[in-house]
Structures are given as structure tokens and as C-alpha cells.
């Protein structure tokens, strides 16, 4: 990347219980390992499960101050509500990653959109939908390069309980593979 | 019981040159309780510097200023919470709370029951005079139903708390009740409560002739003391009394004395466990 200044604003959105805040923390930890400047912010309702939930991660190689993502370079939407609410603030050259297990309508044109049933895939391949967040994180990182994959792997390992490291590494690999095999609809 | 001359007590344990005369009204029982506490502590040979007396707000809560211990006159209802802080940080200190019926069971009811539940090693000496004296005679959670207070001019319709039952229900491990008339018994109960490892309560029924007594035509201080003598029956006698004779009587005696893990001990064990895991 050289000396060029980069700053990526990423919003991970969906509902409580989908692991978005954990995903945000892991992404931010990976950025720290990359020696980038990072803020991770979160917003959620009073409920820890079920209500709207989002995590913002801003990653830059320069100093920055305002910690809330306002114009997203990357938006991950795991629910229809989140997609509807936040896709308007996606940058023109931004990337939308949507879980079409839940997101059925996307009213954006000209945007780079990736749609996959991440939750269904997690359930089918890993027997549980819990690692959906890590699958999407793997997908997001391979498609966007916001952090290095080595740092991401390390961050995942450092962030989950020892007994879940293998499961989550598998989830990461599934995410990478999905990104590599993704065929864009036109 | 060993009798101790007055003189030694007041020069040794009171701030006798600095803070007297005290604020209490003529005929008030608080002085009797103060004497009983001093004598109990003298029997235990407790070091003054290692002893703390904490109070809240009210007539009885003025007591700490008169005693030569580590003393804290805190906020209304909060004495037990302040005392919990002292005891938690310095478990080696002897910490007692002097409080009243309103202070401990109305505004401070929450702290009272939770300290009992934790079984933290505090001794609560609760002087129950059935009234808010400091503010001039409003009804408290122990003012008998039907009685007159300045805020129950037509008679009190509130049911009353039985403070000892409340403490036992919440988990206190030493609970005793007596009256200011039974001063030696009070001294003995206080001594046992202070020695007890865990949350202990001594409720002392007391006379407030100037306010409660006057409002309810209970007579002067002597008449009120005589009423205590008559109405407070010992546990043994209580069990023999037929039900129809129990009305208006007060049960006095040690109502509970048992051992349960004490809070600061348990915390010390927890610290040991956490540090041992390294």
C-alpha cells in the first residue's frame, strides 16, 4: 500500500445475537496487528438478543478522530432491516455484502453487491449458525483486503475460547472459499 | 456479671471532656444503651483504635460523637452500607452500627436486609423508640398501629415491622431483643453480639418520653420504664404464656444464635483461590 493514505469505514449490521460486535472486535484486533489506526464502535438496543445491532470499524494508516462510520466503504447486512436502513449511506464505490438468508430485497444500483445465504451455509457446513459472523468476516476480508489474512487468523484465535478455535478457523476458510468462488450476477 | 465503676468507663471510652453534655432529652434511653455498649466493650477489652462505631441520622445516631473510637456519623439510612465498606477493607477492625427504627428499617431497610443476607461481621445495635424523634415525632415502621404521631394525627393505620423477625428472615445469624429497662441484659446481649462472627442484631426497646410518650399518654420516663419491665417477657416466660395473654407483650431474649460462613472470610478465601491459581 506504500505511503498512500487509506481509510476504510466498515459497518457490520444485523440484529443482536448474530455476533456482529464480536466480529467488529476481531476485525479491529486484526487491524491493530497490522499496525493500523483503528476505532471500533458499537450500537445496540437494550436487549442483547433480537434488537438491532451494529458494529463500526474504521481502519486507517493515518490519524483520524471521528469514530463513527458515516459513509461506508463496506457494509455487511445480515438482516433486511439493517440493509434498508444503512445501504443509503454506502459510498458510490462501496461494497455491500448481504446475507440473503434474511435479506430478500436490495434496492441499490451500480454498487458492488455480494449476496450469499451465509447463515444457511454455516448451518449446513458446520452444523451451527453461530460462526456465520466469522464466515462473513473471511468473505469480507478476502474481497476487500482491509486487514491482512494472517492478522485476521491471529485475531480470531486470540478472541474466541480455545475450544472454538478450530471451528472458527474452519469458518474463516469457508468465507475465503466463498469469496474465491463467488460468481457475480449480472 | 462483673460490675464496673462508672468512672473508668466514661474517662476511658467517652470523649468526656470534648463533647458533653449530650443532645438527648431527659428520660431518653439512649444513655443507658451507650453505657451498656461501653461496659460490653470494656468486658471484651477491645482496643479503641481498632473499633469503629458507625451511625446514620436520628437521635440514636448521635451516639458516635461521644465515644472515643473511630467514629462515623453518616447519612440517613446508610450506616450499614458505610460500615460494610470499612469492614470489607479492614476485616480486622471491630465495626458496630448504632441505629434506630426509622433509620434502619424505613430509609435503610434495603441495606439492613442485605447486610444480614451477606452475614458480614457487623454488630447492629438498633434502638427502637417507635418514633422519629429528631424530626419531632413522625411515625416509623415500628410505631404501633393506632398510635398517635405528628403525621398520624388520627391514629396510625400502618402495620408494624417486627425487626428481629425481619433480620432473621433476611439471614442474620445472631438476633436478640431486650429493653433499656433490662440494662444488664442489654450489656450481655451486646457483648455476645460483638463477639459473634457474622451479622448480629440487638434490638433495644427504648423510651422516648418527651415525644412518643407524650403524644400517646404513656406517662413519664419512669412510667415508660415500668411498662417495659411489665411487658417485655423473657423467652422462657413467653413460651409458657397462653395466647390471649401475649397481646401487648414483647419477646425478649436471644432469638437466634448460629454460625454461617462470614462474608469477609469468604472473600479472603476467594482472594486466596484467585491468587493461588497463578
Amino acid at each position, binding site marked *: 500500500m506504500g505511503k498512500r493514505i487509506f481509510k476504510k469505514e466498515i459497518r457490520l449490521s444485523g440484529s443482536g445475537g448474530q455476533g456482529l460486535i464480536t466480529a467488529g472486535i476481531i476485525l479491529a484486533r486484526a487491524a491493530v496487528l497490522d499496525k493500523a489506526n483503528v476505532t471500533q464502535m458499537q450500537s445496540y438496543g437494550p436487549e442483547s438478543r433480537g434488537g438491532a445491532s451494529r458494529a463500526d470499524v474504521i481502519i486507517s494508516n493515518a490519524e483520524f478522530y471521528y*469514530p463513527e462510520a458515516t459513509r461506508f466503504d463496506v457494509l455487511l447486512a445480515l438482516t433486511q432491516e439493517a440493509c434498508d436502513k444503512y445501504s443509503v449511506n454506502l459510498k458510490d464505490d462501496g461494497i455491500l455484502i448481504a446475507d440473503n438468508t434474511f435479506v430478500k430485497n436490495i434496492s441499490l444500483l451500480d454498487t458492488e453487491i455480494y449476496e450469499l445465504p451465509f447463515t444457511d451455509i454455516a448451518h449446513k457446513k458446520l452444523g451451527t449458525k453461530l460462526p456465520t459472523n466469522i464466515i462473513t468476516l473471511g468473505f469480507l476480508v478476502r474481497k476487500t483486503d482491509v486487514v491482512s489474512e494472517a492478522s485476521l487468523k491471529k485475531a480470531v484465535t486470540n478472541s474466541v475460547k480455545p475450544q472454538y478455535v478450530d471451528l472458527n478457523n474452519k469458518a474463516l476458510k469457508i468465507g475465503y472459499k466463498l469469496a474465491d468462488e463467488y460468481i457475480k450476477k449480472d | 456479671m462483673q460490675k464496673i465503676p462508672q468512672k473508668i468507663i466514661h474517662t476511658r471510652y467517652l470523649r468526656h471532656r470534648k463533647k458533653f453534655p449530650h443532645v438527648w432529652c431527659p428520660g431518653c434511653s439512649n444513655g443507658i444503651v451507650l453505657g451498656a455498649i461501653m461496659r460490653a466493650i470494656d468486658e471484651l477489652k477491645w482496643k479503641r483504635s481498632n473499633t469503629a462505631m458507625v451511625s446514620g441520622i436520628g437521635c440514636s445516631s448521635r451516639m458516635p460523637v461521644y465515644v472515643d473510637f473511630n467514629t*462515623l456519623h453518616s447519612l440517613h439510612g446508610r450506616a450499614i452500607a458505610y460500615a460494610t465498606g470499612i469492614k470489607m477493607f479492614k476485616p480486622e477492625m471491630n465495626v458496630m452500627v448504632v441505629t434506630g427504627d426509622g433509620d434502619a428499617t424505613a430509609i435503610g431497610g434495603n441495606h439492613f436486609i442485605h447486610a444480614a443476607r451477606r452475614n458480614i461481621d457487623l454488630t447492629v445495635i438498633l434502638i427502637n423508640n417507635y418514633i422519629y424523634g429528631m424530626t419531632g415525632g413522625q411515625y416509623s415502621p415500628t410505631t404501633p398501629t393506632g398510635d398517635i404521631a405528628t403525621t398520624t394525627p388520627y391514629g396510625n393505620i400502618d402495620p408494624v415491622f417486627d425487626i428481629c423477625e425481619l433480620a432473621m428472615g433476611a439471614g442474620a445469624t445472631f438476633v436478640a431483643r431486650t429493653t433499656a429497662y433490662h440494662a444488664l441484659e442489654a450489656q450481655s446481649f451486646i457483648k455476645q453480639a460483638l463477639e459473634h462472627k457474622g451479622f448480629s442484631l440487638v434490638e433495644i426497646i427504648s423510651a422516648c418520653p418527651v415525644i412518643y410518650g407524650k403524644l400517646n399518654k404513656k406517662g413519664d420516663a419512669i412510667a415508660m420504664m415500668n411498662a417495659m419491665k411489665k411487658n417485655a417477657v423473657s423467652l422462657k416466660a413467653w413460651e409458657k404464656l397462653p395466647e390471649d395473654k401475649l397481646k401487648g407483650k414483647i419477646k425478649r431474649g436471644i432469638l437466634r444464635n448460629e454460625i454461617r460462613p462470614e462474608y469477609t472470610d469468604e472473600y479472603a478465601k476467594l482472594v486466596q483461590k484467585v491468587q493461588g491459581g497463578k
Partner: protein
Amino acid sequence: MTKNNIESKVVLMQGNEAVARGAIDAGVNFFAGYPITPSTEIAEICSVELPKRGGKFIQMEDEIASISAIIGASLAGAKTMTATSGPGFSLMQEGIGFAKMTETPCVVVNVMRGGPSTGLPTKPSQADIMQTRWGNHGDAPAIVLYPDSVLESYELAIRAVNLSEKYRTCVVLLLDEVLGHMREAVTLPDLAKVKIINRIKPTIPPEWYKHYEDNPKYIHPLASYGEGYRFHVTGLAHDAYGFPTNRADETAVMMERLDKKIKHHLNDLVQIESFYMDDARTAIFAAGISARAAKTAVLMARKSGKKVGLLRPLTIWPFPDDAIRKYMKNVRNIFVPELNQGQLLNEVKRAMGGVWNYESRRSRKIIPIQKNDGQLITPADIINKMKEVK
């Protein structure tokens, strides 16, 4: 604030965690608290960390009990802290007044959320600023610190503990909900280099000791329970020994000390950050999370050639009157973005009173930018307002 020269020790840390770690590093060895969003993580971390160090943690039955317990423990010699948020902070006011009145060191963290009442438990607000100054009944000055980053949360937590010990009073650490829950890369300083202040202990024999001995600096030694100094503490007006008094002369001495011990040490207490203020023609005055938006707005404005600067208080009380007058004297307009209905605005107006001659220089304005709906003020909000006001 994020740093470019990140070392290997750098960690991703949440604001609430930084507060807990800062306080513990400053020597806090007693924490009593009650769960409340968005401050709960501070209690959780203390419950993990304090027993490891032989410190004490207790979850009390409510916030009133929590402030009471930390004051009791402080009198017994502990360095103490509690943490809460809006509703709990309201419940603690009587205890905070007691700590100030009895000159007992303690730290109260208030992670602000939307109010009044239960309000918006998970949304940011800056509407407790006045409560931290005037929340307890009676006259008593306040020391209140207000960070704008995770690292600064750590640093000001240490400073809060230090100031509480030094000035024998309750120090409040204000935090924005967003900051409490935000994570940033933080390089923690070498602990050996961190300055820790402990309360001054009396050296005279107990019989000579006065718990509230007056002296020209208004700061006096503090004995602890259980050390042989059998002193009395009361929330009543008291004399030098701590015994209750009704005498006007003794009360006056006490009240003057509470006031002067803050006012005589403004140089030590007041901390501000001047961000591009030296040549500023337009100024922003903002604290906490709103200052983060303001910094971005300053950089955006500078890029388009406008001389905009930010003055930010790290100590919000005592209010930095002198700094405001010094830095704002020659600016044209002052913008005050805040997540409330004008709590800082009115203070800035008060501080500037008499400095600007409003009659002859009508063009000068102090302009509010306010939100109280749970949303943050964005850099764009500030830029747009600046464009509006010519």
C-alpha cells in the same frame, strides 16, 4: 487518540476497560458498585482484577449503598472507586455531597447515557455535565474530568484517583456512552513512569491530630480508621476536629476551605487541549465525544483554507474560564457542539461575559450545535452550521 508509532505492547481496549485499568494502576484497591448500562464493564473488570491484587470488590444492593461503601472504605484507608450511569448517578448525589463535605477521597465514574430518567440506556448524551457540578445539595465545588479517547480514559482515570487523594474529595470521571463502549488501539505507558499520588498521612501524635486542620494550602493530612487516630467524621457542619458545630465562625472556615482548596489550585486542576487554536479565527468549544467530531471538522475546514480551531477541556470542572478568555479573545465566532440543550454553551457565554463587547461588535456570536436524540454530532453537522453562519 490513535497513535501512528504503534509499539508491540499496543492493545485494543474499550473505554470502560481503560478506566478500570487506569484506576487499578493508580492504586484503587476497593470498588463497590451496582450494575447499570453503559458502565457495567467497569465493575466486571474490577471484579476480575481486584482479587488478583488482594483488592476488594463488592456488588452492593444499590447505588446509594455503593457510594456509601466506598466512602467507608476510604476512611479506612482504601483508594476507592465506583462506576455508574445517569439514574445511578442521581442516586449517588447525597453520598457525593457527603464525600465532599467530609473531605474523603473517592472516585465516581459516570458513563453518561440519554436522560432524563431511564432515557436511552445505550445511547450517548452529554446532559449530565451540569449535574456533575451542581448535583449535590449545598455549595461544594467539584473536580470533574472528561476524556475524549480510550487512552485518555486510562490517563484521566489515574489522574482522577490522584486528585481525589491529593485534594481529599470526590472526583467525578465523566465518560460518554460511546467512549465507554468504543475500542481503540492503546499503548499503555510504562507503569514505573506513571506518577501516583497518595494521601498525606499525619506525622504528629494522635492526640494532636485534627482531621480538618486548616492551613494556607487548604489541604491537610488524612488519617485512616484503625491507625490510632480516633477521629470523628460527620456530614454535619464541623470544627477542625470533625465534631459537629453550629458556630458561624467554625462553619465559615469549613465552607471557605471546601471552596478555596479548589479555587487556589486551578493551575494544577484545569487541563485543556488547544487544537489549531493559535491562529484560529473561528473556534469550536467541545468536550468528550463531540470534540472528536470537532477535530475532524477542524481538519476539514483547514483543508479548505478556513482558520478553525478547537478548545477542549479535559477538566470540565472547575471550568476553564481563563483559558477560554485567553484563546477566544480574538476569534470571531465560537461554535459549541454538545449532546444536550446548552449546558456548555451557557458556561462559555458566562466565561466570555465582559471579554467581548457585544454592543460594539455585533458580528461576534456563540453558536449552539445541539442534539439530544441519542445520535452523535457529526463533523458534517459542524461544517454545515459553520457555512450557515457567515
